């Protein structure tokens, strides 16, 4: 029982990171209607920028604030200079563009930071663990749960309670209608892509002290992010959050009893849900 509780806690921490990734991808998929294959690469760039910022500034917290903003700016440029020019060309071209971009970003990471992996320790205050009574748990993972939780709630509040969030949700439902109401749909696309990139970037920044950094880290995370989006329902924000947590917890619980299946369970859960609900947990299309 103690082991199970510990694994569930662990699954929630991992699931929060998956949810952050899925949330960003779902936003982009919902509003721009493209599967962003560069999402994993943006996650990796977030992690690498964080490590560089820590090196330059000597402060984890400032790096954690700045690096994801850098990824958001990169996302803004990608949409403004790249994807936007391909709207007229059609869906396939945007898809190919993001795929090509993921390769370019991965190679750029190797050029800038080198092919060898890097370790980043948590800040001193978050090193080591705390005894929770039923398990001894790393402080940094508890911080990640808290930070990711706040980010998810913050994003949700932005989408639900602000005027621009309402426009974004309307954009997910019906872009043409939003455009006919006189709202600059292109700006909406840019903001959505930048916000999605920010979420990928901060997921990467938070992950760096847990998993370390390697040029291929984005590829590992991209597959899971797509599973989260498909499982939650294409473009569904609440679905992405629920699916991220579900995948994280399922992975952790299975690992407690059948470790060999801990990766396969991600895809088994997705397959099972899609058979029962082809539109995903919360999807309508």
């Amino acid at each position: 029982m103690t082991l199970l509780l510990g694994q569930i806690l662990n699954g929630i921490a991992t699931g929060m990171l998956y949810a952050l990734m899925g949330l960003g991808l779902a936003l982009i998929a919902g509003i721009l209607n493209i599967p962003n294959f560069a999402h994993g690469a943006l996650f990796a760039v977030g992690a690498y920028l964080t490590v560089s910022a820590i090196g330059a500034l000597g402060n984890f917290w400032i790096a954690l604030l700045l690096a994801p903003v850098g990824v958001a700016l990169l996302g803004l440029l990608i949409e403004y200079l790249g994807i936007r020019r391909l709207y007229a060309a059609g869906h396939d071209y945007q898809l190919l563009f993001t795929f090509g971009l993921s390769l370019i970003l991965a190679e750029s990471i190797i050029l800038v930071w080198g092919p060898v992996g890097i370790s980043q320790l948590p800040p001193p205050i978050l090193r080591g663990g705390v005894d929770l009574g039923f398990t001894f748990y790393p402080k940094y993972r508890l911080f990640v749960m808290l930070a990711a939780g706040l980010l998810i709630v913050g994003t949700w509040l932005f989408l639900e309670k602000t005027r621009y969030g309402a426009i974004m949700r309307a954009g997910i439902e019906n872009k043409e209608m939003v455009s006919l109401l006189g709202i600059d749909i292109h700006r909406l696309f840019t903001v959505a892509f930048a916000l999605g990139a920010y979420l990928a970037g901060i997921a990467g920044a938070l992950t760096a002290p847990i998993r370390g950094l390697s040029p291929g880290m984005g590829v590992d995370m991209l597959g899971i992010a797509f599973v989260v989006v498909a499982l939650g329902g294409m473009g569904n924000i609440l679905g992405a959050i629920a699916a991220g947590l579900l995948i994280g917890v399922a992975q952790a619980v299975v690992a407690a009893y059948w470790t060999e299946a801990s990766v396969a369970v991600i895809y088994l859960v997705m397959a099972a849900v899609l058979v029962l609900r082809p539109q995903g947990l919360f999807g309508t299309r």
Partner: protein
Amino acid sequence: MGELKRRDILKAGAAAAALGFPAIIRAQQKELVMLGIWPATGAFSDVGPILDRGMKMALEERDMKIKGLPVKYIVRDSATQAGAATRRVEEAVDGEGAKFVIGPWSSGVALAVSEVAKRKKVFHYFSGGTEDISGARCHRYSFQWAASPYTAAKTVVDSFMKANPKAKRWHLLVADYAFGWSVEKYIKEVGKSHGIEFVGADRHPLGEREFSNYVQKAAANRPDAVAMINFGLDAVAGAREIFNFGLTPKVPLIMTWSSGVEELVQLAPEIRENIWVGSNFYYTADTPVAKKFVADYQKKFGSPPGYAPSAAYGMTRMMLHAFDKAKSVEVRDVVTALEGIEVDDLVGRMKVDAKTHQTLRPYFFMRCKPKSAMKHPMDFADVIATGDAPLPPEYAACKDLGGF
């Protein structure tokens, strides 16, 4: 103009044969094609380029010539996928005339490539943790350079227990493929003689990045030591998470089959504290060949070589020794010459068992240094023991190598 007769056609054919076929034969003898099948994509893609370096350095030491013939060194991507690797080896053998194949880097993929070598009758050298190349699936054309998993397990367990005699409760984290299973079997076997209790043994898929679930389980077992039988980025990710959960440095972590430098450089000094490392090579190896190789490598690439480039270099050197002994460039002669060869080479005295094609050689065991004891950034560890106990005959699964 007369009618073309059957005799004329035969004459023309004979002339063509005289001109053409020897030309082909001459072309075949113009160069020796050697294939490095290394991972450029997929799992272990980080290692592919440095494996290539090692093989190239060994060939360059001979000015890319063997018995007066120029060596044409070609590289193909194994992609760490059996299907891709075997297809590319076959294409290189059939299309490029490759007769000597070294690689790849994954045990599972190597077993598939070994089958191609057997079918195509080409020389094949591999370095990795599976015992099947020189065991149950041995045959005349494939050789194993890495220490036998038994040699590795015996060196690691004996040396660790000598330094930590009270650490009797071990938890194992094992990569779930051929290499992991082989080493796990012998770690448990050798562990019996020390009275080690294996309180847990969890297998994880190749390419696992989320180790927290396994580490939490390991922590719950309250072991005296955690031993990982995995490799590359899996090992690095595992070591990080074991540190994050506060197991190391309190609980020692043993990386039983490590690439050494390539893995240790990815871990911060704090994470390396109380890590014990078994490896097929460490750059402070005290042999003339290793010293020269390490110096040349450092001069060329700026950092010391780990196990990967050293294995590629070492395998190529052993193959070149066989060419020298055979005084021939024919595959059969080189294979026969390598069987039973005994030389002082990269890691010391090295002998190829003629009955199993296993290279008998020392295995290294190191202890990582605390940050304060490091003399330079690459001063990761001290070699505290080497071991070369061969696989006892009762475990040998290679009963008959067969013929050519």
